[in-house]
């Protein structure tokens, strides 16, 4: 295959665009897709200060890199979830990247600062770890943005993430979630503005961007993700994509252009009705404790039994034994 842009030998094909690119032109392609997303959804002001949620994975490191390349004053925020060795490695990858680039990284350690961790929270609530993890990350990320005065926060959700979430929401007709699923959530009382500049780029493109740019991201997966239903949705969508390239983008962007507005009203009304958490002051629907403070209350000091922490178990058994994630998620 030849590069669509310059005719040199290609290193990556992007079938959705019926194109292949050499390394340089692929980097150009990624920048253009981010520029276009930022422009189409009116995400950021030129050169704006932005807080990027970084996990050490491909999407968040690529996002941080791309935003810097495009001239934004982007700083990182890493949240330590206490998921055994996986969290140790993700922190190492994030810190090494930030140090090498000389970029500012804020850090929050949930166990150190709030007295619980994600495996413990999953055990205490008897719910899938991704639920506790997502709500903690959203809460802490938002709080950090407000505390440090960032006008906008950016997350590395890519086209595949958003299409999988959309499929999940449609399968259950979660009208409230559908109303809130958008690449931009405007600022409102107690909530920082949130943007997803990678929505026009697929997961495979983000991994390729890191390989080409020499970004040493963490390939290892979170052990708590095993069995997560979004992995199944991504698999199904990739089956469709392989048969009919462009399916994922058509599904997501069709919704954003023609479907989203029909659900947005309902989500707006829900946001209006918010009270304040008596513990931390965050917006909450019940005028008592917000979801994060409730989770903290239940999970503080709880240690998940070994089955919920495969990375810890692996650490105990020695580094080279295979990890067998249990049915989390």
């Amino acid at each position, binding site marked *: 295959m030849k590069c669509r842009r310059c005719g040199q030998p290609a290193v990556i094909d992007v079938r959705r665009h019926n194109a292949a690119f050499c390394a340089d032109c692929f980097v150009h392609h990624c920048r253009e897709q981010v520029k276009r997303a930022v422009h189409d959804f009116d995400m950021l002001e030129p050169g704006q200060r932005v807080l990027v949620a970084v996990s050490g994975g491909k999407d968040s490191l690529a996002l941080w890199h791309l935003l810097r390349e495009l001239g934004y004053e982007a700083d990182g925020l890493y949240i330590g979830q206490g998921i055994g060795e996986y969290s140790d490695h993700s922190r190492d990858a994030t810190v090494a990247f930030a140090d090498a680039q000389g970029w500012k990284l804020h850090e929050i350690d949930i166990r150190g600062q709030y007295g619980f961790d994600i495996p413990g929270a999953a055990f205490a609530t008897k719910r899938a770890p991704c639920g506790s993890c997502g709500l903690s990350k959203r809460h802490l990320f938002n709080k950090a943005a407000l505390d440090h005065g960032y006008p906008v926060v950016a997350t590395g959700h890519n086209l595949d993430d958003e299409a999988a979430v959309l499929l999940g929401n449609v399968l259950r007709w979660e009208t409230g979630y559908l109303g809130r699923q958008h690449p931009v959530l405007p600022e409102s009382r107690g909530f920082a503005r949130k943007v997803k500049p990678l929505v026009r780029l697929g997961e495979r493109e983000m991994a390729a961007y890191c390989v080409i740019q020499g970004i040493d991201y963490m390939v290892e997966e979170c052990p708590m993700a095993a069995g997560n*239903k979004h992995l199944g949705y*991504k698999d199904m969508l990739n089956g469709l994509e392989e048969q009919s390239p462009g399916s994922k983008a058509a599904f997501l962007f069709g919704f954003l252009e023609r479907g989203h507005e029909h659900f947005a009203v309902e989500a707006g009304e829900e946001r209006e009705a918010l009270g304040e958490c008596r513990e931390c002051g965050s917006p909450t629907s019940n005028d008592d404790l917000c979801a994060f403070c409730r989770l903290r209350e239940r999970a503080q000091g709880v240690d998940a039994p070994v089955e919920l922490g495969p990375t810890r178990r692996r650490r105990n058994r020695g580094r080279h034994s295979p990890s067998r994630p249990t049915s989390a998620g």
Partner: protein
Amino acid sequence: MKVLLRNPRRELEIEGPTTVLALLKRLEINPESVLVIRGDTLVTRDARLADADDIEIRPVISGGSNPA
């Protein structure tokens, strides 16, 4: 050729020459869900792989409903 797979990490020995697409088909891997890396360079699905090549098949699908 040596083929490295990840998550979990394991190594296979597969006879070359072949193409990227044929290799993935043989291993029942959807090309949309991985990158194929020869040495340290990405290769496209039509690339020919020689018996002496070192290949990595790297999954790109991240789990979890709430990536950072």
